[in-house]
């Protein structure tokens, strides 16, 4: 290793300049984070109450299905979003020894982001949604997010370009990865085609399995690159600062950074294990999730080991308490994650509350506590006043920790319990708990326990808000001025020599060989893998040898080259996305030939289903497991959802799966059940949807919707689009007539009738309507006819 240190490089005597940091921006972001955090978690408590006690669904716009997306969006993008912006704006200036490049861009970023949040608060309860989890916001808001993010990126990289510190510290690496990757994820996942004619409605350009893959590539990496990497960067700045201890290991930073961003991006399909997604993609998702364990723990270790010798301080300082606990929760969540990604474990845990517990240990424990640690550290320093009450902060810590533990234990018990009940069978293969609601009633006490845990956490947040406001969260910031020495122009290593340096060439060659091995057959594969292993071994030895004989450390050079660093980080992230998603976009399932798009009224019903957020509690994906097919019918196939834009496979079963709901019950059952779920199923916690009876459909627009869908590959004919309204009325008339026969009078052009039409279509082929079927029946795997 070299013994030259960074300080000796700034030797040339340039005149020092006095600069003033922009601390108003981070303070503003912190205030917004605290405010939205309390709002978002309050909504969380409300939805938790609704799950435990259905009468809490007091109004159509405040039902669980509409509030749940508001809760997730508010906590992820408003609470954590504003928190990471605060941390990035504050620490970046100091790590680069320069003021943020543009105050105007900082202001536009701040107010633009708050405007986006407000528009989410308005549109989501109104049912304006794209129906993709954590990406529900409709297209105009998506465009605004893209713009604001690009301005943020410009401001950030412009600041880097003006830096007075040659080498980028590890926190900056994580910020770079965050900004680049979130931009890619958001744009690719949100691509949608708007319905022409002045509405906010749009349909995802992806359908079925493709949409599932893109959505969970996004969804998982929103966790990775919005909730994890920026917060790791924040940890690398504030933890050593608060502890006054050196970071444990620079080389661990390097290894876990690159490993984390490269591996994370592949792991998305672990949200789709045992579904109809092609098996190779599922296996990739699983093995990369397992490989993610060590890189994640690298971050935890570097944080916890930095505290070596400083634990007595942890006992006294609320800042360190929160940071240390936050990092510990990170370690727990990133151990649980790979565990849940094992196919058989997922078979038990998927669709249950275990997953809800898992995300909350991350969100409350890691994000919430890291935020609190950072706020308690920063607000006194930026306002120039001591923390108003350390005891209150301590109380916040303990009530928060206890709240998280209650929450997690409740969800573990509930998830494992319900998962086991779903799969419990008698010796003859019949279900031990054939009615779904039995399994819900069994876990109801856990829903109350979760509500208590969540409420305690919220109480802690309110205490923090009060404490911080009294300290000076809303006060004017004190100005911090420092003298910095501008960077002296120095000869640079040519960029080609960096790109084609041994570590990078070796990495590319080894990964290429390994990739070739994975893509080839049973006999060629071991050869590739053995060659990859040998090359890796000798390559590392060669690099070590060169290092000992005095070469400059490669990564140190790279850290001085922000653009090269950004490009390489971008490539590391893109590799996994391209390898997984591109094949899925090209291949179309063979069986799709036999699938038929929804009829006009069914499509309208589907839009109601999405707007009401039904997908937040009902999956449409029957997994190939006997206990599951006994309950719901044959396993779902790729063809069945090929025209679903967006896909509706779901991720949680608070209610039963609906993939083969069609024809299972008469229209009257659905009508009564939607009006008052508990009139049909005692003990159900589904919100009532009586308001659908009075909500009129605008059938003049249905043709436009079909037209939009036809642009993204749904094969509607010109006749079908023209006759959409007539067809919808005909189908509605038939349903209304049958309901009337059973004694229920419902108006035909209502959302109620449309959603019944949709539910009755699920898992069924449509009745042959006038158009001739171009039925080129291909050989199809076993599961052809639907059951029940």
């Amino acid at each position: 290793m070299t013994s030259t240190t960074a300080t000796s490089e700034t030797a040339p005597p340039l005149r020092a300049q006095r600069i003033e940091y922009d601390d108003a921006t981070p303070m503003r972001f912190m205030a917004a984070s605290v405010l939205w955090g309390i709002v978002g978690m309050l909504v969380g408590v409300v939805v938790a109450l609704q799950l435990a006690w259905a009468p809490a669904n007091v109004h159509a716009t405040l039902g669980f299905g509409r509030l749940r997306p508001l809760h997730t969006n508010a906590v992820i993008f408003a609470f954590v979003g504003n928190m990471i912006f605060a941390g990035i704006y504050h620490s970046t200036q100091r790590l680069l020894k320069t003021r943020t490049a543009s105050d105007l861009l900082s202001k536009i970023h701040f107010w633009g982001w708050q405007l986006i949040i407000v528009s989410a608060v308005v549109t989501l309860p109104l049912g304006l949604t794209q129906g993709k989890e954590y990406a529900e916001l409709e297209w105009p808001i998506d465009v605004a997010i893209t713009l604001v993010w690009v301005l943020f990126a410009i401001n950030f990289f412009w600041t880097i370009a003006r830096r007075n510190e040659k080498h980028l510290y590890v926190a900056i690496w994580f910020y770079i990865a965050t900004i680049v990757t979130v931009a890619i994820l958001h744009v690719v996942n949100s691509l949608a085609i708007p319905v022409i004619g002045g509405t906010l409605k749009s349909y995802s350009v992806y359908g079925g399995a493709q949409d599932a893959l893109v959505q969970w590539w996004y969804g998982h990496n929103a966790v990775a690159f919005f909730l994890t990497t920026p917060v790791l960067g924040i940890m690398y700045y504030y933890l050593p600062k608060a502890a006054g201890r050196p970071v444990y290991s620079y080389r661990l930073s390097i290894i876990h950074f690159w490993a984390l961003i490269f591996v994370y991006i592949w792991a998305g399909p672990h949200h789709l294990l045992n579904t109809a997604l092609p098996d190779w993609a599922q296996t990739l998702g699983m093995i990369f999730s397992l490989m993610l364990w060590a890189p994640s723990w690298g971050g935890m270790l570097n944080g916890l080991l930095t505290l070596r010798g400083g634990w007595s301080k942890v006992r006294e300082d609320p800042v360190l308490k929160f940071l240390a606990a936050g990092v510990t929760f990170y370690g727990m969540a990133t151990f649980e994650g790979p565990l849940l990604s094992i196919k058989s474990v997922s078979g038990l845990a998927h669709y249950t509350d275990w997953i809800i517990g898992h995300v909350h240990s991350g969100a409350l424990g890691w994000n919430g506590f890291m935020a609190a640690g950072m706020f308690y550290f920063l607000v006194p320093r930026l306002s120039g006043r001591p923390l108003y009450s350390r005891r209150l902060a301590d109380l916040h810590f303990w009530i928060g920790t206890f709240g998280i533990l209650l929450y997690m234990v409740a969800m573990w018990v509930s998830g494992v319990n319900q998962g086991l009940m779903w799969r419990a069978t008698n010796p003859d293969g019949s279900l031990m708990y054939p009615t779904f609601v039995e399994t819900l009633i069994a876990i109801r006490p856990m829903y109350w326990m979760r509500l208590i845990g969540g409420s305690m956490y919220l109480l802690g947040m309110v205490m923090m808000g009060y404490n911080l406001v009294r300290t000076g969260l809303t006060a004017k910031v004190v100005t911090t001025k420092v003298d910095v020495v501008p960077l002296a122009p120095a000869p640079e290593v040519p960029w080609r020599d960096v790109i084609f340096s041994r570590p990078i060439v070796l990495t590319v060659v080894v990964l290429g060989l390994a990739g070739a091995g994975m893509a080839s057959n049973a006999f060629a594969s071991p050869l590739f893998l053995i060659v990859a292993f040998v090359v890796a071994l000798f390559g590392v030895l060669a690099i070590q040898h060169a290092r000992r004989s005095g070469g400059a450390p490669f990564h140190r050079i790279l850290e001085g080259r922000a653009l090269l660093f950004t490009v390489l980080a971008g490539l590391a992230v893109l590799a996994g996305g391209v390898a997984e998603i591109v094949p899925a976009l090209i291949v179309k399932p063979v069986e799709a030939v036999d699938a038929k798009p929804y009829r006009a009224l069914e499509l309208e019903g589907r839009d109601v289903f999405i707007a009401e957020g039904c997908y937040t509690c009902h999956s449409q994906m029957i997994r190939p497991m006997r206990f599951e097919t006994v309950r719901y019918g044959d396993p779902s196939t790729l063809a069945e959802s090929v025209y679903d834009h967006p896909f509706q496979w779901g991720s949680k079963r608070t209610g039963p799966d609906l993939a083969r709901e069609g024809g299972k019950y008469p229209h009257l059952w659905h009508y009564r059940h939607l009006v008052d779920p508990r009139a049909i199923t005692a003990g159900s916690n589904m919100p009532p949807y009586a308001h659908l009876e009075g909500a009129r459909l605008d059938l003049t627009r249905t043709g436009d919707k079909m037209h939009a869908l036809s642009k993204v590959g749904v094969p509607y004919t010109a006749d079908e689009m023209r006759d959409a309204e007539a067809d919808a009325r005909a189908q509605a008339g038939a349903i209304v007539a049958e309901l009337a026969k059973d004694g229920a009078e419902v108006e035909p052009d209502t959302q109620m009738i449309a959603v019944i039409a949709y539910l009755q279509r699920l898992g069924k082929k449509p009745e042959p309507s006038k158009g001739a079927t171009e039925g080129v029946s291909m050989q199809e795997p076993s599961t052809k006819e639907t059951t029940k």
Partner: protein
Amino acid sequence: MKSSNEPNEPESSESVDRVIHEVDGIQEYDNKLPNWWLYTLYGAVAFAVGYWYWYQNASIGQSPLEAYQAEMDRAAAEQAMALTVGDATPEALVALSKDPSALALGKQVFVSTCAACHRADGGGSVGPNLTDDFWLHGSAPDKIFRTIASGVPDKGMPAWQPQLGALKTQAVTAYVLGLVGTNVAGGKTPQGEREPISAR
């Protein structure tokens, strides 16, 4: 992954807790990676490669769909061997309808499963009234059993035997036999053919 770039020099003990960089007052050590952490990383990579080879390259392991087919084949074979729990003959069902333990089980199943559509007292709501003398699909005990076991998919009556199993299906049939003729108050209007209980 760049995991292998950094040397592990056991001989250079001077690298323990030695500050190598400092920025904005934050110092960095360059300590060795904990061995157990490295083994976790290598182990996970080795497992991943092996798992992929086993399931994807060599296809030795079963995919979820293949495993499901095998499970269903096994179940079908078992079911072919084991006959149903007591044949559901009319006589057996009538006998069962006089057995208190069967009735207790049947009532339990009825309340949790059937009451949603047929009302807790059998008076009917979404589904028909089970307490009058009118029948849509036959009033004979074996016909009632078949209606419950195999369902009437067109009318929205699910097939219950796959979910409930033979025993509970028979028990609930026995319970329904006991409801016939109770003509509860406020029951649904009669549907189907009049088949008084004496006719069976």
